């Protein structure tokens, strides 16, 4: 982290969640008091502690610029990307860092995201086309049609929304916000051919119907995606599809 001229450090008290199932019976919190310059992020602080205090502190990281989605964790109770969270933006000087909820802790801030990825795969997150046309030219798509995919295409699959969702806390079968937003992204793509019948895949309690519209996913998303809106939109489309199907308006 860089120390720019003319700035002074601010002191913070860090409480870091620590748990290694191979060694520990239960989690503990390690405490450090340390000064950091303006602009320093939670990720930079963790790297600093790893380098200077304890080289066993485990967390995922890669891009450090909020595009790879590796470093989702709880900071003072809020699911955030650690690399994008500046210490100076927190209220007060206490920094409590914990792993994302709703997933099993493998070590410290590293969680087992297997259920998150299982949900992702469930919505068949790829463009469905009518067979493999040889790519001789691009299919035309209007700027407006591309614009409709925003901001859903910006999802970095960080699982912050998955960790924030209260429903997953009591129903681990629930598919969760990110997977539904991903399905919405494809169903909104003018090139996708899966059609409304695909919605039957998520037409169940653990699909779109278990959302209680508590909107935590919207607060948690570092890319300003509103998964709840996509869940409600797909619910409406589902009802419409069922209605049309009943009256034989669609197959």
């Amino acid at each position, binding site marked *: 982290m860089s120390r720019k001229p003319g700035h002074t450090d601010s002191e913070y008290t860090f409480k870091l969640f620590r748990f290694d199932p191979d060694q520990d019976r239960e989690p503990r919190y390690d405490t450090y008091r340390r000064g950091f310059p303006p602009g320093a992020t939670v990720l930079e602080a963790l790297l600093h502690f790893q380098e200077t205090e304890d*080289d066993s502190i485990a967390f995922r990281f890669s891009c450090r610029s909020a595009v*790879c989605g590796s470093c989702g964790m709880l900071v003072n109770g809020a699911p955030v990307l650690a690399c994008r969270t500046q210490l100076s933006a927190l209220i007060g000087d206490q920094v409590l860092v914990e792993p994302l909820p709703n997933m099993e802790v493998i070590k410290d801030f590293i969680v087992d995201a297997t259920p998150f990825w299982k949900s992702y795969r469930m919505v068949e997150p790829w463009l469905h*086309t009518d067979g493999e046309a040889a790519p001789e030219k691009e299919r035309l*798509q209007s700027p407006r049609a591309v614009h409709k995919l925003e901001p859903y295409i910006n999802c970095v699959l960080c699982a912050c929304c998955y960790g924030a969702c209260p429903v997953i806390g009591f129903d681990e079968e629930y598919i969760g916000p990110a997977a539904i937003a991903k399905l919405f992204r494809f169903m909104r793509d003018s090139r996708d051919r899966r059609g409304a019948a695909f919605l039957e895949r998520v037409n169940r309690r653990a699909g779109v119907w278990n959302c209680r519209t508590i909107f935590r996913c919207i607060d948690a998303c570092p890319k300003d995606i509103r998964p709840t809106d996509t869940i409600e939109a797909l619910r409406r489309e589902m009802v419409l599809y069922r209605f049309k199907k009943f009256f034989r308006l669609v197959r």
Partner: protein
Amino acid sequence: MITHDVLIIGAGIAGLRAAIGTAARYDTAVLSKVHPVRSHSIAAQGGMNAALANVEGSKDDTIEKHTFDTIKGSDYLADQPAVRVMCTQAPLLVYELEHWGCPWSRLANGKIAQRPFGGAGYPRCCYAADRTGHMVLHTFYEKIVELGVRVYEEWLALSLVVDNGRVHGVVAMEMATGRLECFGAKAVVLATGGYGRVFSRSSNALINTGSGIAIAYEAGVPIEDMEFVQYHPTTLYGTNILISEGARGEGGYLVNNRGERFMERYAKSAMELAPRDIVSRSIQTEINQGRGFNDEYVHLDLRHLGREKILERLPGIREIAIDFGGIDPIDTPIPVQPAQHYSMGGVATGVRGATAVKGLYGAGESACVSVHGANRLGGNSLLDTAVFGKLVAEAVPGYLESGAGPPDSRRLMDERKKQQERINGIISRSNAAESVGTILPAMRETMFTKCGVFREKKLLEEALAALRELKERCRKIGISSGASLRYNPGLMNALELPGMLEISEMIVAGALVREESRGSHWRTDFPARDDQRWLKHTMARYAPEGPQFSYTDVEITDYEPKARTY
């Protein structure tokens, strides 16, 4: 032992595209130290060059012109037939990505949009806003999910097993447990990306340690042109996060502390859109001569583009400037400075990805074909990764069908034993005086201050001496936390550090020998290009006392080297 026909190391764009190509017919697996979507490809912003001639102003663009621009951009060090292959494939890859769902930005007529980029004669760079890498990587990953390709996530390849001129596989560590495993394969594709993190200032992801290049080097594979390191002109002051060339492609100005658009002095006609090596040197010159801000940076001014254009074309850049620089480019210029960005050099490969070792292939930034020569043009790296990922997948079947035998399990087991002993050694030295923390920062600082944008004999010699001392000290490093190997970052870093030192040594030693200035390699004591002596590729081979260099001819088939002005 785990075996596959094809084992791909690295899950960025090159690795995933290679896997897509072989998975249908051959037992294919990808091994990566991070989940695929965490790969550094995600951070590419500006776009992917292809002579589609879609936009007003690019109607006369052709594959030939793309080929020429790339060769001239490379300062004539690129192998010209390879460049032609890449540029010919370019439109096919852009269309393929479109067919697989990539959300390219579009023109009013529905065609794929293109923007101007550095060193290019026409607006040629296809883009998805300023998040092109993200969209391309996700599109390929979606295809991987559709095809059900096996991915070993969070495994670190520690060593490449080569015997009798052919590859047998790798020994890798499962990061979740610290367990070593032999991965036998008939063919191995190295697609592990660049080594940016050997420099203290780099735009690269923190995971970019160059470990794939290092294990190939240690296995005796020739490594090409490592002294050619791209310094990106515009990285955010403080964190060195990339500020896309697209920002200048859309019309952004570079301005010094006198308010001058100083590029006029260095590249009168191309201005801000001169190639990166030239713009980086220009910015560094302004800073060195006291015309920067705080002697550290210059301004990238986007204000005149207006709010609407910034929001539409450069939303990611704006987000980065706000989140990491605390400024909104709609109202305030962005403070930028050069930092390491890209590795032109890498594992020496032919145009179909083959290396000097049978069954071993390379693609993407960790490979050197060479299509970028001494300086890569912006928009050509996403292209390189996708094109050569595809081509390597087309070449591997030929090898598999030519009677490639099964991998030698005994050689793999022997290597696993060696690696286990190495790990045991690091763990046993729990009270060592030397650690990653005493060596890595010194190495990074040495590389940036003594082997940066401007180089000279004295600094390079100092750097080489410093690196050799660090290498010696590195033999004795230990970690304090060896009791549990479950996700042990100390162990990971200790295992990667020796390779980073090898890479640094190759870069510096190669730069010291090459007494000329070409592309990104600028020697203040030899400020001219010297085609008589140095129109050739550097090949480094591993030896315990340091890299052994030999030189090979550049393939000049169409364009004779000329003075390079913009």
